[in-house]
């Protein structure tokens, strides 16, 4: 999509090629999995049920989108605390804001979720870029911290959510997803986006080009945190209560989705659209396997296999593109 936005493609082929370069094999897998799902379970995948499906898939899509910016920043950038941020936002919103303080206004709830996400993202960014702790270790620390805190304030599932939030768990979950995408489309048009991709591509070259590398990386964690906060709201809308055990499970699936969506874990390549398609792929796989009554253990095996295959395919695609380059 970068190429589409910055050059005038003479035909549709380069544009398609650019999408392929950015999203990898995820769209092909999407079509295949969708066909399989429609074939084995026409009722669940009929057009009238799509709204519900989007609602079910929304938290995972949100988590995948949230994971992407930190990874795009490169040099091992990753935020594994995305899942726990979602769980923490869930607990704070339902237990503290709605139940204890009785604040149910959308502005306060959404604002709180975004602020919590931004604050935790800033903490992660501070540790990873200023203290220069390895990102995976820094965010593992945040992971454990948040899981512990969430379980302390919320030992067992409880609570209810206001009607407006509950309604976002269904077809209307397209609203928060759309909002996140709109924000990202805005970011893509800012100098910041070019800087992020450049830093992810090669941070030394970025430095000698005059890009504030540390600041760019720091902000990528803040963006990840904000998106994770919104994903936490989507999860809250879907489950309609506070549950301390669900959030953390999203982390690893989200990272699988990001890798499947053609985002290079080395940084600088891919985008949020790819991450979202990767997440939908995993959701479709989930529902196909569940239809055949496979256990959740088998699902885990499937996630693992997908992650490995996705990375191998992305590497092969890289090599293939490299060869085309050599031939051109």
């Amino acid at each position, binding site marked *: 999509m*970068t*190429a589409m*936005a*910055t*050059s*005038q*493609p*003479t035909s549709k082929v*380069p544009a398609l090629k*650019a999408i392929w370069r950015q999203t990898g094999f995820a769209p092909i897998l999407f079509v295949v999995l969708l066909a399989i799902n429609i074939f084995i379970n026409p009722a669940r995948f009929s057009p009238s049920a799509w709204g519900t499906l989007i609602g079910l898939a929304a938290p995972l899509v949100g988590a995948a989108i949230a994971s992407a910016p930190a990874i795009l920043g490169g040099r091992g950038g990753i935020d594994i605390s995305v899942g726990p941020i979602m769980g923490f936002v869930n607990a704070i919103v339902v237990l503290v804001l709605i139940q204890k303080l009785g604040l149910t206004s959308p502005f306060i709830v959404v604002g709180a979720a975004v602020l919590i996400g931004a604050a935790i993202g800033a903490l992660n960014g501070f540790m990873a870029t200023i203290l220069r702790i390895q990102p995976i270790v820094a965010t593992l620390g945040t992971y454990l911290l948040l899981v512990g805190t969430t379980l302390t304030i919320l030992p067992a599932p409880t609570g209810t959510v206001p009607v407006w939030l509950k309604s976002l768990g269904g077809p209307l979950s397209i609203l928060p997803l759309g909002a996140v995408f709109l924000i990202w489309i*805005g970011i893509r*048009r*800012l*100098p910041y*986006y*070019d*800087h992020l*991709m*450049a830093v992810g*591509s*090669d941070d*030394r*070259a*970025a*430095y*000698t*080009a*005059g*890009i*504030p590398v540390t600041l760019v990386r720091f902000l990528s964690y803040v963006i990840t945190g904000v998106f994770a906060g919104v994903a936490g709201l989507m999860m809250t809308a879907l489950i309609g209560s506070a549950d301390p055990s669900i959030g953390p499970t999203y982390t690893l699936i989200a990272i699988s989705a990001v890798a499947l969506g053609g985002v290079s874990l080395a940084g*600088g*390549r891919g985008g949020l659209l790819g991450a979202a398609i990767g997440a939908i792929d995993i959701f479709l796989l989930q529902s196909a396997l569940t239809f055949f009554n496979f256990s959740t253990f088998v699902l885990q095996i499937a996630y693992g296999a997908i992650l490995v295959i996705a990375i191998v395919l992305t590497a092969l695609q890289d090599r293939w593109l490299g060869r085309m*380059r050599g031939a*051109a």
Partner: protein
Amino acid sequence: MSDNPVSLSVLGLSLKPGAVSFDQEIRRGEIVGLAGLDGHGQDAFIETMAGLRPPVAGHVNAGAKADRVIRSFRQAVRSGIAYLPRDRRATGIFPSMSILDNFAIATVGRDRKLGLISPAERRKRYDYYRDRLSIVAPDPGRMITTLSGGNQQKVLLARALAHKPDVLLLNDPTRGVDIATRRVLYSVFRELAAEGMALVILSTEIEEALVLCDRILVFREQELAASLEGAERSSERIISTMFGRAA
């Protein structure tokens, strides 16, 4: 030339502890060459002027006196000093980005219209430098790695020029560049100097320095060994200074 205003000056600069310090003034329209055996200080000098390396003693100023001291790379960029790094592959190009993005990355802020990036504006800026530097590239949306080494170097030069700098620091700009491209680069450098830019060119080829530069600074053991001007510039003189044999 000597009455042109000073674009960049260094005062009491030492490149290593204990080395003899030196002053230098680089004026508008001047092309200054840096020569020396590899690792004898010319690399350190150009990086210090670019703000990438803190000086051991003394300071670098944008302009004549100690009014605008350069302490960091970003400050150097803001003060109108642009730097073209030496190692194109490691610290120059972004291999996964397009030609256009590689060109614009250091100056993305200039493509803004109402705060948002305008692709058309970026394309317009690129087209100017493409013509000026005769960059041979069919489609700016292609990956930078599809270009030849010489054309990649031109894109990087365009990136540095896009800052519209007063001082252009070039660290071995013609390394690994074919002879035709070299000619283009030489004539561009002369044009830029004629327009009033000050250029500092670190070259590993003495002939290149002789052809291009009005003044050649020869470095030996992290110290400025000689500043050769006019008729003094000869390859024998430079080589003997490089090896420390000259008086």
